[in-house]
């Protein structure tokens, strides 16, 4: 028990140390650390480091692509769950819509009979998914947290059942030859193939960086402050003049857009879309990725997604039990460390660390979000 407490404290102290060290650096020094790190991340599938590698079980670049794809999904879901505090159990529905839009518009099996280029299809897929986010969010986001969870669960299932039953969506037969990004090597062979994970990995990592910058900017804006306010106390936020429903829908739509994007990427890499991969279990896996690392903490979410995707690939022996293991991890984590491995950062001064330093006179502390005494059901009447 003591060792257990010590290890928990150890993780927390380590996370805080790293956080303090990071925020103590100047912007220039931060870039100095970040750039080599990003380069290293880009080089991973090429280096194929001996201990990290998932071969011979899974092709390492493909495993890395899957991890990156999971990370992208987790970032999108994190906007909804981590930032705005809305439990979305139907996120796989958005992912599915993105994949199906890509398939419908590019596959020769599609009843539409069109073959648009991939670069056109991705924005369309995102737009359709965001629209479906509005359609789902507008009526349901007035509901309280647990009701919302059930309704989103129902939404995810409806999307899956549509894929099963609507004739033009081809159920189990699915769509072959879904298009990927353009581009050929010097010898004329395409860069993006179903078997080569590395270009896809680079593409997704680039997309992740872009999305991180976008989401990061949103978080530091009025929108992000509204989300955090809603997450911490919706009633209080409403009273203070935050149009909560509108911002909740915005969070939903942002999350949906990223989900659709990753769906389109997934469809392109696999080259095939059918109704098999979009069940609730997958939704819960996405949620586990967010919660494991720490909802609301982008680094934590990336870490969580990596663990969720990488562990079953690396340790094939446990792959069969992965849902069992992640289910247990969810319980243990929620009981002992509800904020996740790293925990959400509560930025009291959203303008950033310069303002903080000016005001407090020392670098910003990373405050891990613990259970607040009043946030339980005790206050509910």
């Amino acid at each position, binding site marked *: 028990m003591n060792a257990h407490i010590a290890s928990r404290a150890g993780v927390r102290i380590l996370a805080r140390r790293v956080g303090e060290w990071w925020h103590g650096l100047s912007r220039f020094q931060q870039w100095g650390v970040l750039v080599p790190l990003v380069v290293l991340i880009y080089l991973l599938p090429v280096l194929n480091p001996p201990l990290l590698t998932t071969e011979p079980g899974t092709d390492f670049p493909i495993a890395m692509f899957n991890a990156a794809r999971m990370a992208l999904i987790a970032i999108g879901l994190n906007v909804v769950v981590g930032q705005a*505090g809305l*439990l979305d*159990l139907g996120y796989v529905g958005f992912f599915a819509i993105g994949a199906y839009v890509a398939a419908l518009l590019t596959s020769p099996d599609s*009843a*539409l*009979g*069109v073959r648009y280029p991939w670069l056109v299809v991705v924005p369309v897929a995102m737009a359709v998914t965001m629209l479906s986010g509005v359609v789902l969010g507008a*009526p*349901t986001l007035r*509901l309280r*947290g*647990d*009701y919302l*969870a*059930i*309704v989103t*669960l*129902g*939404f995810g*299932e*409806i999307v899956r*059942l*549509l894929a*099963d*039953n*609507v*004739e*033009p969506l081809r159920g189990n037969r699915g769509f072959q030859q879904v298009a990927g990004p353009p581009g050929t090597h010097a010898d004329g062979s395409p860069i993006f193939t179903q078997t080569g994970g590395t270009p896809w990995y680079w593409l997704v990592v680039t997309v992740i960086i872009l999305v991180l910058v976008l989401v990061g900017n949103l978080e530091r804006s009025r929108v992000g402050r509204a989300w955090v306010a809603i997450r911490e106390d919706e009633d209080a936020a409403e009273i203070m003049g935050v149009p909560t429903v509108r911002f909740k829908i915005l969070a939903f739509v942002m999350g949906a857009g990223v989900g659709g994007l990753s769906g389109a990427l997934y469809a392109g890499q696999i080259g095939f879309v059918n109704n098999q991969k979009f069940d*609730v*279990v997958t939704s*819960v896996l996405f*949620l*586990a990725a967010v*919660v494991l690392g720490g909802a609301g903490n982008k680094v934590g979410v990336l870490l969580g997604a990596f663990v969720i995707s990488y562990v079953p690939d690396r340790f094939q022996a446990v792959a*069969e*039990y992965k*849902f*069992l293991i*992640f*289910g*247990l*991890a*969810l*319980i243990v984590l*929620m*009981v002992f460390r*509800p904020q996740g491995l790293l925990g959400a950062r509560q930025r009291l001064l959203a303008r950033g660390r310069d303002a903080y330093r000016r005001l407090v006179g020392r670098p910003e502390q990373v405050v891990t979000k613990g*259970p*607040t*005494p*009043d*946030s*339980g*059901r*005790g206050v*509910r009447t």
Partner: protein
Amino acid sequence: MVHQLATAVAQGDGGWIDFNVPLLVDRFWSNTVDGLAYGSVYALVALGYTLVYGVLRLINFAHSEVFVVGAFAAYFTLEGLGFRPGPTPQLSTLSIVANLLLAGAVAMIASGLVAVVLERVAYRPLRRRNAPSLVFLITAIGASFVVQQLFFVTRGANPERAIRILRPRPLFEVFGAKVTNIQIIVLVAAVALWVVADGFVNRTRLGRGIRAVAQDPTTATLMGVNRERVIMLTFLVGGVLAGAAALFYLMQIPQGVVYNGGFLLGIKAFTAAVLGGVGNLRGALLGGLLLGVAENYGQSLLGGAWRDVVAFALLITILMFRPTGILGESLGRARV
């Protein structure tokens, strides 16, 4: 593009959605009868959601797994009694009743125990810490996952083959719709269980404790109600009812139990609870029966594949227009 889509749909065999009104009219009464019998299963499971929600303001996501445990327990009991999948054996009435009662009792005990253990392991530590409701939900999902996967790992992805000991036999007809002995047994037993549960909550001392905690936990505690015990009791009652529902479910479905069979049923039962008014015992019964019937109508009208969509669509519609359900939320309301 929209135009192309429209022509594609018009040309496709089947198209998106067909409405088959004549079939619905034709099967109206048999749908109603089947729906009531099936809906009584929803009603019993919905009682579990409603009771826990009334007391804790918490959707017990893992309740569907409590149900599945009951179904497996009933299955294993029948198997242990020497019954095997295949043709239904010819048994005396007494033997049928005794075996069914035994299987039901084991299912109820197993489900009740699992529900209590779940509360102890997953919810109580969070309650001690006053965790936010999001944390409760995630824990519940995790717990539901673990139970589900335990069955998956041990019993595989295919449904068990059904074990039957009671032959369906039409007893009488209602407007041309056959009513089988199984449907009558299930409906009567479910309503009887509901009467017992309702009586327990509304007329006994322990039930008064449940209502007191539902109404105002703090005051109830000050008045000497042991809140933790009441919560345990609530989970126990909900679990026992789910166990009984599991047996009734097995008697009606074409196949045996499967590891993830609780998921859909759980959502539907929850829909039933919300439809009638979550936290309201009468609402759970009404909602369950209504949902069972509505689902069958939907199946006739839209085709078998759309059966499950009806429940989800209904859930979203109620939550949008009348989130308190038909009868309103009432477990905690003062009743003299």
